[in-house]
């Protein structure tokens, strides 16, 4: 891997929206994050978590109340959007309705006063990149949503920005088209080598496309990491809950040896678990176990329960268990062609939590 240069760096960014007659809203609360060069970086979180605000601050449509935003070390926070080598793909595409596809794509270069010949060549190259060269003279109202999406991408990529910002660009597309564009976006990122900052509330989209993900909630970044780290090594209850399905267990930490914790479950069973960064040893802990990392047994396991519901999903079956200590627990079991999962409603079962299945959250 090349040296990890930072493309965008947010340092202590706070954005407070003050409106008359109501309380001030802290959309971003002292957020610091470093986005590396050539990386596909995703800001993931529910609506209202501040991810779009952060994107707008980087684009220059809004300015931070406090803190700095650095592009390759240069503070760009006070610059207007037209002085930042950063382009945006808008959620609604925001294509100019009074221009053709080619005019839309060429707009940025035209505003940079590039020579006519260069603009034409670049527009053609961009349209070819997104497979839209045949529709170059169409009006933007005459093309489909998926095609508009491609034009919006070509338009934002044409001026060769240092960073491309994408604000939930796939949310308006139907499922199949969205899958297609996910692949397309990854390809474009690889081909252009531009740093992508992608905003989404769709965890699946984030996991499949990103090099790294920042999970946000209530104006704060809770965890930054690779999709694997976010999914398998969540540090925070919100992160674990927001991404994928999770079982939470209360446990007591007996001790930590070489990065692994020995914990006692409320059933009395002792298991080992990985520990989240920033864990403060205080005896009690919340344990997360992904449904596919636990195993259901006919006999006794680490914890006991009764099968409450069985849901068939095709590739796998979700078996929902009511624990004898109280609380639900879901186990996901890979399906075979033999039919049935081997359990029935009302069965008394044991749940086995493997050697490397559990993670202790930091709080």
């Amino acid at each position, binding site marked *: 891997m090349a040296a990890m240069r930072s493309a965008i760096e947010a340092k202590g960014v706070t954005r407070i929206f003050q409106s008359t007659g109501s309380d001030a809203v802290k959309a971003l609360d002292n957020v610091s994050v470093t986005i590396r060069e050539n990386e596909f970086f995703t800001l993931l979180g529910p609506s209202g978590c501040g991810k779009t605000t952060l994107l707008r601050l980087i*684009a220059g449509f809004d300015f931070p109340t406090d803190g700095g935003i650095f592009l390759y070390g240069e503070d760009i926070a006070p610059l207007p*959007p037209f002085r930042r080598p950063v*382009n*945006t793909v808008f959620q609604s595409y*925001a294509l*100019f*309705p009074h221009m053709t596809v080619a005019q839309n794509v060429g*707009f940025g270069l035209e*505003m940079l006063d590039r020579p006519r010949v260069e603009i034409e060549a670049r527009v053609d190259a961009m349209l070819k990149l997104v497979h839209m060269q045949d529709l170059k003279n169409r009006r933007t109202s005459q093309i489909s949503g998926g095609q508009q999406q491609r034009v919006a991408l070509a338009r934002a990529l044409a*001026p060769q920005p240092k960073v491309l910002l994408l604000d939930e660009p796939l949310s308006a597309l139907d499922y199949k088209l969205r899958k297609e564009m996910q692949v397309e976006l990854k390809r474009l990122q690889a081909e252009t080598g531009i740093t992508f900052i992608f905003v989404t509330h769709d965890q699946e989209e984030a996991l499949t496309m990103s090099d790294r993900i920042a999970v946000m909630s209530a104006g704060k970044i809770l965890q930054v990491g690779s999709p694997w780290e976010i999914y398998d090594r969540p540090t925070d209850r919100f992160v674990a809950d927001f991404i994928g399905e999770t079982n939470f267990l209360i446990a007591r930490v007996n001790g930590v040896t070489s990065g692994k914790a020995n914990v006692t479950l409320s059933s009395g069973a002792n298991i080992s678990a990985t520990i989240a960064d920033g864990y403060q040893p205080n005896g009690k802990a919340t344990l997360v176990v992904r449904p596919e990392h636990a195993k259901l047994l006919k006999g006794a396991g680490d914890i006991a329960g009764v099968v409450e519901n069985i849901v068939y999903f095709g590739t796998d079956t979700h078996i929902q268990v009511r624990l004898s200590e109280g609380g639900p627990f879901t186990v996901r079991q890979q399906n075979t062609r033999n039919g049935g999962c081997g359990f029935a409603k009302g069965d008394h079962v044991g749940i086995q939590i493997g050697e490397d299945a559990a993670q202790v959250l930091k709080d």
Partner: protein
Amino acid sequence: MGTAKETINRFERADVRSRWLLSAPALIIILFAAAGPLLVVLVYSFLVPGSYGDVKWEFSTDAWVGVFFERDIFDDTLSFADAHLTIFWRSIKLSMATTILALIFGFPTAYFIATRPERTRDIWLFLITIPFWTNVLIRTFAIQEVIRNEGVVNSLLKLAGIIDQPIPMMYTDFAVLLGMIYVFLPLMVLPLYASMEKIDFRLVEAGYDLYATRFRVLRRVIIPLVKPGIVAGSILVFIPSLGAYVTPRVMGGGSNLMIGNLIELQFGQGRNWPLGASLSIVLMVIVMIAMLIFVRYTDRSDAGHG
């Protein structure tokens, strides 16, 4: 199958009948309130003036000749009616100036209103329409009060010691122009606002994002998008300006006539109804030509839009 087709046909005929019935009131109004009077005007323009106003029912093209030519009292030779042509030209010139200036002042006003928070926009629109509540004549006299020799502006300038003699502003083209802009400005602001309000301001952000400076965003994004409003507002201001009668009368005095005053003169003191009628038709033709130019202009710029 045949019966189904017949039923459909019957319903279609009934549908057509009911549509005619529904549009009957509108058609009657158009016939009696618009087409009828116009026909009268057209007929009158080919008659001979009576001695005390009114018309004599004799066919004559004198009125039409009189619109463009003057007959010499002594030798009956025709020469161009300079007075009329000057008034036509002044009317067109002043109306165009009014339209352009109303656009220049109205555009920022409309933009200001359209960019306010939704709650306060209604208040601003309300303020814009307040002058409409007062009679045009009163409003025009109010302006007169501001710019006449002993008016507000001259008094203040004198008081400040900037001038000794009042600057004569009344009874000039400037005064007429000022009065017309004031009276017709809301007609420009409202359609401009209507089309600006519809703008997706993310397009403006997209413009900034793609390296367009504020001026270029205005020229390349905002103006093309509000073009329908610009055209509608220009038509709404230009047409009444051309036929304006009260404002040029009050602000221009007797020397700065516009077509409207000339027509009024023929029906009043001039007692030449046929000439007045033909002048009215000339005014209509000028308006029609202006409309055609406007429509051509917008059609071309909108080609390929939909």
